[in-house]
């Protein structure tokens, strides 16, 4: 059993695809309420790690624990946000957000108010009845975020959630995610290949190297919150960023 204050504990986690080792004996613990960013180039196994935590894929070796129980399949106390919004085009925004409610039979009537509150929080009030293809990419991803929060999971797993957005929308979404996190205090595991995004958002940045995917460094970031976007221009921010880049360069991670 892992210690209780650790919400997520990963021990000796290895995942191989045939001859390719995507994850190589990864050890990681994440405290409850933390916002942890996993940064690394493509092929470093960060998405594989996330898929294992989401219960979508079994590890080849090792184990992953969540809230004191082993992750052996999809669980209801996890919310996932993917790189694309993955909205169902035949469901309205509200119905998309209520998808987990339908799947887990939590009672639509009861949850509708919660959904409306969350939609208001991300600025989608008034768009409940719209279809997804009537929204911009940023708005779609906000709806996806609300969908991941609706069933009140203890952990939010985010797999490069803003990677498909343009740079400006992306920064805006980062600020918004921080605000939501400060309001809700969910534990968030945030996978990204953007070093700046990782340092801006996270309490702790986990740096991974590719082939085989290993953790090469872990940094604590202690800028006060809420962090304004201007924190990116400070010297301390630059120091963190260059340390991470050095690690990635040293492992041949940055092309």
């Amino acid at each position: 059993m892992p210690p209780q204050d650790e919400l997520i504990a990963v021990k000796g986690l290895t995942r191989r695809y045939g001859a390719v080792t995507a994850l190589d004996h990864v050890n990681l613990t994440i405290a409850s309420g933390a916002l942890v960013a996993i940064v690394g180039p493509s092929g470093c196994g960060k998405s594989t790690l996330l898929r294992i935590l989401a219960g979508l894929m079994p590890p080849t070796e090792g184990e992953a624990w969540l809230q004191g129980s082993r992750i052996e399949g999809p669980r209801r106390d996890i919310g996932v946000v993917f790189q694309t919004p993955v909205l169902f085009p035949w469901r309205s925004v509200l119905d998309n957000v209520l998808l987990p409610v339908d799947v887990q039979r939590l009672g639509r009537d009861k949850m509708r108010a919660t959904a409306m509150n969350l939609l208001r929080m991300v600025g989608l009030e008034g768009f409940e009845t719209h279809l997804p293809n009537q929204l911009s990419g940023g708005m779609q991803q906000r709806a996806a975020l609300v969908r991941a929060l609706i069933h009140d999971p203890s952990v939010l797993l985010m797999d490069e959630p803003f990677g498909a957005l343009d740079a400006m929308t992306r920064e805006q979404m980062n600020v918004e995610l921080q605000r939501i996190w400060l309001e809700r205090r969910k534990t968030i595991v945030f996978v990204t290949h953007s070093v700046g995004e990782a340092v801006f958002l996270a309490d702790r940045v986990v740096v991974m190297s590719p082939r085989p995917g290993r953790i090469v460094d872990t940094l604590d970031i202690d800028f006060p919150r809420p962090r304004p976007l201007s924190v990116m221009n400070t010297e301390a921010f630059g120091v963190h960023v260059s340390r991470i880049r050095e690690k990635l360069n040293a492992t041949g991670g940055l092309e």
Partner: protein
Amino acid sequence: MRAFRRLLLMAALLGLWEAAARLLAIPAYILPPPSAVGVGLYRGFRSGIFIENIWITMLETFLGFVLGASTGFLLGTAVALSRRFEYYLYPIIIMFQAMPKVALAPLIIVWFGLDLTSKVINAGLVCFFPLMVNTIAGLRAADEDRISLMRSLAATPAQIFWMLRLPGALPSIFAGLEIAMIFALIGAIVAEFVGAQSGLGVLIQSMNFSMDVAGQFSVLFILSLIGLALNGIVTAVRRRVVFWDNNGRGHQLGGKP
């Protein structure tokens, strides 16, 4: 304006046909002028013979469509969802499809008689395949990310089917239904040719025997109107059901009777 020009072109073509038939003195049993076809239409409707046979052919087509479409949908779903089912049964279904099914019509008549049943079965046989392949394609095309999302929510396979795969397959299924509807009409007419007591196919044949070519043209005209109407019905239903995908007609697969 464009619509007007389109009508004008049609009228001009009919006029040309009329003029050619008269000026070149083409015998009416080879190519009757449009006016004779018009008279044939009028007579046929007035005597009630068209109404009666239209009703019969449409009933055969509709019942055959329901039979073929539901069989096609069920088989397609089974093939798309079960590897084992696909492995054992799909080759048989493909072999069956490779055979021109109109060639089966004489057998069907022998097995099921001259009444409604044999027409319905033949129409069903001809129209089930397009729906089956479109159902398979649609169900299989479910987006991997969407499946991951459903699985991450701990959805059951049944929930993944009803909430994701089936709605996602609807554009494809409707593309299949549009073909199947027309194919059902073909199947019904062919079966009527081979052996029946009533229906538009029978009418065409008896008019052929009596050299009533104008009458045949008028039945052909009615058949193409029926085809248009049936297609229009499926399209209208599709617009309502697949409201999120109104630009495309999906991609139709399996288009040969």
